[in-house]
């Protein structure tokens, strides 16, 4: 119905093109145009963090970013964290520490945590809590999520 734009960007390490509506946000592009559904819709208004991805190494809410603005950028989604050892440690820690209940907030949490640990490699619990302030979780009460993120970092530090 409305104007389409052709854009080119790197998604999870692979160069690709997409034709997107000018009003479309990046979350919708990822889910509906590209078909990667690991990134979640929780509010569409930048208030819950379920849609967190990384763009050029910085975490942001994909629901607030126009898809056309992805042109020329490097995007990483939860699916793209597959080959990153830090992310592996995070994922494992989330499982082992019981940080996953319904799991709906989990992909966004992990994207945010991954960014946080790259930025603050020695994050303690307080720093982690502030770091995931923008990610809502209704199930866990956050404690086990914080434990997992701190442990993932510890595991990384002590890893040979």
């Amino acid at each position, binding site marked *: *119905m409305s104007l389409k734009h052709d854009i080119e960007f790197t998604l999870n390490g692979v160069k690709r093109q997409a034709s997107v509506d000018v009003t479309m946000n990046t979350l919708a592009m990822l*889910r509906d145009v590209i078909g990667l*559904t*690991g*990134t*979640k*819709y*929780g*509010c*569409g*208004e930048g*208030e*819950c963090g*379920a849609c967190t991805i990384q763009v050029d190494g910085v975490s942001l809410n994909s629901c607030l970013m126009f898809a056309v603005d992805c042109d020329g950028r490097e995007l990483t*989604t*939860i*699916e793209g964290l*597959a080959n990153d050892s830090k992310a592996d440690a995070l*994922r494992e820690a*989330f*499982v*082992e*520490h*019981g940080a*996953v*209940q*319904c*799991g*709906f*907030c*989990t*992909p966004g949490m*992990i994207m945010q945590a991954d960014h946080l640990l790259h930025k603050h490699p020695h994050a303690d619990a*307080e720093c*982690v*809590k*502030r770091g*995931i*302030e*923008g*990610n*809502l*979780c*209704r*199930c*866990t*009460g*956050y*404690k*086990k*999520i*914080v434990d997992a993120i701190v442990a993932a970092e510890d595991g990384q530090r002590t890893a040979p």
Partner: protein
Amino acid sequence: MSVSEKKTRIIEPDSLIGKRIPKMDAPEKASGRTRYIHDINLSGQLYGKILRSGRIHALIKSIDTSAARALPGVHVVITAADIPDQRPIGVARDHFPLKVGRVRSQRDEIAAVAAESEEIAEAALKLIKVVYEDLPVISDPEDAIKPGAALIHPEPHGADGTHLHLKQGTSIAHRGKADNIAMRFDYAHGDVVKGEAESDVVIEDTFRLHYVTHCCMGVSGMIAEFDASGNLLMYSNTQVPFLHKREFAEYLNMDPARIRIIQPPIGGGFGSKLDIYPFEIICLFLARAAKRPVKMLFTREEEFLASPTRQPVLLTLRSGCKKDGTLTFRQVHTLHDNGAYTSWGATTPFVMMQTFSSLYRVPHCDYHTAAVYTNNPYAGSFRGYGNLQATFAIEQHMDMMAEAIGMDSLEFRLKNAQDSGETTGQGMVFKSCGFKDCINTAAQRSDYSRKFKENEANRGKPGNIKHGIGMASMLHVGGGAKIYPSDGCGTILKMDDFANVTLITGASEIGQGSETVLSQLVCEELGLPISAITVVNNDTAITPWDVGVHASRTTFIAGNSAIGAAKKAKAKILAVAAKKYDAAEADLDLRGGFVIKAASGEVVVELSKLLRNLHFQDKAELVMTTFYYEPPSVHQGKDFKGDVSAAYAWASQVVEVEVDTDTGMVRMTKITGAHDVGRVLNRLGIEGQIEGGMVMGQGYALTEDLMIVDGVMRNPNFRDYKLVTAPEIPEMDIAFIESMDGEGPQGAKGVGEAPSICIAAAAANAIRNATGVRMFELPFTPEKVYRALHGQTPKRYWKPWKAE
């Protein structure tokens, strides 16, 4: 047999119970691979959208859908007029999915569209023209019961979808109401007049509990498809697939046998999926009309507007005790704001009256609720089911009475607390009861008594930050709840020739971890590692019957059912092994994937080998068992008396706060919880459930407030509806009281709802301890607390009223 195999091998005893077992579905979820309802798309699928009223109370004069129907890409547009066989839904069958003639609340469904895309469906909604005639709005339940109040449901509704001109001979689906009372509950034991006469102290206060909502992170949605033969396939997040299958069939006028429900993983439940909502029926209507699969997903705003809330309650409690600290009576009147339609919220008195009648020993109790229609949102079931509200009032009164008679509040509680072996006035029988242990443990671990006195002494000292500590306790069903004539669950268990188990259970997984706990119980019985099991729990075409996920029942009921099936499998295996290896059945056991000699742990044969043998050589037999567990509880009669649950869960929680008297800001610094859970099955899972529940309780107490003004929801978004975020969580210290319930699976009791129940009540007591001011209304936002601290909150009194 080879020589090496002959060497004796010993398998040491091991147990899965009480261990920290990660959730089986966690790896998929943590990789973003889990497909929730939002992530499923069927080929040929259309997108459904609903036009909502926007008016609060109005007559619908006309609906013009012609422009919407003409929009390219639109397949179907429906209004009530298009569905002549529409039937009312809901707990009181007072709710047409598509509204007929009148709208009664902001969320009311007027019309719906199925189109090629969500954008087209939304554009079509904008083209629908509705003419309304506004009616007076009732947004205060106290107004709803005034003589001469406007009626919310005055007219009978015909089953043919019209109401203004009921045709002769058409059946009446809903009779209409001559008043605004949707439901009432009246319960009594003993004689409160006598109780009051025996009292040395009597206090009476009014408490007001507000609107909050579930805020599941995954919004509501479903997909419906009718196949070429007219069979219906639904992808739905219902918590009660089997009961709902029947209901859906009724609303669609079809055979329930032709409905299949598949439940994809759910993005949070907390009770919100316990009823059938208009959007679900509307989605079915659209799919039926379009002859294509139709997917419907809410936006977050819609989720706020059109999913249920926790039951708001206005409550006046009158309590009495003797000077020696013995409770004498309790009298309770509540006014439940029912909203425009009746869902499970109206039935929360089932649980509330249990708390009033039976948490502490009360010889005389009198309880009345009237749930009254207003033009507000309607309440459903929400984790805790009325118990947060009841506990808020009761536990404040416990502190207040102790204060009035000059008794230590801990001693006062212990004096009246239930013990095991007691039968309450309401007929509940407490077999395992760790209540006193809970009180003592929570008090000791938090250093309650010392801090309580210290805080009191510090109240008058300079400084704007005041510290407070408060306690509250709870009783909740922990062994199912026989709210239907049956409270059972079925299991099918089969073993393959590699000694892997498939557990097919009727119990749905709603993120709470039931899949993992059930696996643990089965593997414990069969001596297998948790990796040897696959759980199937999400397809009514495969799974056996179950009542549904509610009332903290899954671990207890489905757990016992799974154990029953596993025990039968074990008996069969041991019988075969005994015969084959010439041993007595009683001398054999299963451990570590082997049949062993029970006494020594010596390996007799590898289990998989035995099973293969059974399949291929012996009698060509399979190990496949079924079991149906029905708990030994009682379906309560009209007097609400009887032992409704097979076990009861107990908890005491101590909340510590910091109150800033300059700003009214309350910070929750620590929660200490002692929970009688029967027995810990999965330590990791149960801690997670309790922490999550505590923080949910914190939100109820401090930050969450769904603002409804004249029937209009003012804050349907996460910016203005404040959920607790990570930096705000308190320190949490959890102690488990293992009372080993005789009926529970491995001794366990249900725990799902317990952890959020006490928080608001304990926080109110803590604020009082810190500041000397008592809060009778939730939530404790800075404005409210500041006003109360500065004497600007006139004390509200609601004069007890009960429906005639």
